[in-house]
């Protein structure tokens, strides 16, 4: 019986393919994309201010509110600024670390260092932000204790804290693609550049950087997009500062259509970013 089913299936590759695709297709296309589509449509609806019910009258009012109210424009620019800063900081910290791991250290310690960089990815997101609460706490925090002797004070909770916290969270996501890119880069290229008289920094700028650019872009997609939609970090160490995610979160229970409208901003920015990345051709070489 069982073998006859096997034979029957074997002779029908279309059926086999259909069986493989049915469940994940239903799940991802119907359930997930369906939910996203429904949310997008909700963005064009309004809410009855008395009953709180959603009224399905297709209009652009929410988008108009979002684009004309300077408060939302500020939140959008601030979020964008934070995401760009985080990406930049992660890049600056990650580059020398990845370079050291891939090109300077011995094979033995390389494996160990990769594990050291990977471990915090498994430590809880919340715990890491909570850690920065203890670090940044004005007056009694670790930063004030550690750096007060050299005259540095904790920035306290607010924009800089959010940037530090998010950079901390996403740093491994930047180090790993750059490390992988550098590992693929043949040493002979660096030697050749050196033999031809280029100094270290010149080799780095003219040989290494252009060749690992796709890896940098790959890393930036994580740091940028993950920062763009975050709101938990802002809630824990951001003081009163709000990000786009915070606005979505707050509107979710009181005005879902407007929450959906705001949610289109990070999605649109990400889509634009991906499109830009595609244009540079960096994705193709990943």
């Amino acid at each position, binding site marked *: 019986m*069982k*073998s006859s*089913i*096997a034979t029957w299936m074997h002779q029908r590759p279309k059926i086999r*393919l259909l069986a*493989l695709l049915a*469940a994940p297709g239903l799940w*991802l296309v119907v359930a997930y*994309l369906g*939910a996203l589509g*429904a949310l997008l449509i909700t963005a064009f609806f309004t809410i009855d201010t008395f009953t709180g019910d*959603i009224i399905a009258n297709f209009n652009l009012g929410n988008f108009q509110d979002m684009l004309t109210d300077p408060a939302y424009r500020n939140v959008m620019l601030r979020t964008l600024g934070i995401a760009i800063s985080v990406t930049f900081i992660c890049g600056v910290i*990650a580059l*020398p*670390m990845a*370079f*050291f791991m891939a090109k300077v250290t011995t094979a033995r310690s390389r494996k160990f260092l990769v*594990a*050291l960089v*990977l*471990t*915090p*990815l*498994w*430590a*809880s*997101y*919340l*715990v*890491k932000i*909570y*850690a*920065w609460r*203890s670090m940044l*706490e004005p007056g*009694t*925090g*670790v930063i004030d*204790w550690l750096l007060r002797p050299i005259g540095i004070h904790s920035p306290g909770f607010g924009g800089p804290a959010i940037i530090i916290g998010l950079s901390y969270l996403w*740093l491994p996501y930047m180090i*790993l*693609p750059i*490390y992988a890119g550098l590992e693929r880069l043949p*040493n002979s290229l660096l*030697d050749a550049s050196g033999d031809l008289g280029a100094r*270290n920094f010149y080799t780095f700028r003219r040989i290494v950087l252009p060749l690992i650019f796709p890896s940098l872009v790959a890393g930036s*997609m994580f740091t940028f*997009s993950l920062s*763009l*939609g975050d*709101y*938990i970090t802002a809630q824990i160490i951001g003081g009163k500062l709000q990000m786009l*995610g915070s606005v979505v979160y707050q509107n*979710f229970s009181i005005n*879902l259509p407007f929450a*959906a409208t705001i*949610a289109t901003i*990070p*999605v649109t920015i*990400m889509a634009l970013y991906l499109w830009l990345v595609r244009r540079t051709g960096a994705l193709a070489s990943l």
Partner: protein
Amino acid sequence: MTLSTRARYVLASLMGVGLAFIYIPLSVVVINSFNSSRTFSWPPTGLSLKWWEKAVQNTGVRQALGWSIAAGFSATAIALLLGTCLAFAVSRYNFFGREIISLLVVLPISLPGVVTGIALSNAFTKQLGISTSLLTVIIGHATFCIVVVYNNALARLRRMGTSLQEASMDLGANGFTTFRLITLPNLASALFAGGLLAFGLSFDEIVVTTFTAGPGIQTLPIWIYDNLFRPNQAPVVNVVAATLVLFSIIPIYLSQRLSQDSTSGGRF
């Protein structure tokens, strides 16, 4: 590469600074859990184990851990099934829309969690009229866990090729037997790595969970979040946080021993 000694020292110290940046906050969490005082102040005035005892006895923590494990295992099981199916379809067949699949699969994890969260919550409660529960949490988690299983399985299937399967079938084994005796054993370690990563993602997830969890369902991250700003609970939160930091070594150890597919376990 021939680097000057000075350049080597500079890079080595930047590596050190980077590692300090990564590990100082984590160490603070661990040390803080032994802080004998109820309120936070650095450096700790005294060390004690009493909060660890309190945390072990805390029913809220235990219950949350239970929910997290239940959600994690269920979501991982679903992700393993769906992700493997997709990986087989993409690696072994040619069909219309094949190129879209890798994009579709990565979408739930690349879109901001708050977008996925409100979309699912809206679909469950408003469109379908289902009230949120543990099941809705599992559905939400499974959706973004599929990608890690898919990536791991796909990489392995591509590397494996089809010659072993063909050999098995030439020798008279049918499709099921070949799958059981040849394909699955070859795929197992990739599935384990993917499953481990899926469980890790689910165990740590907070945003989608916030929007899809039914009343009374408190996964561990939600428990931490709910108690983060309660001064009374701070010592217990510290212990839970420290435990999570210390336990993060286990999956790294496992994946280092097991997966040679990629250093990141297929996240990229």
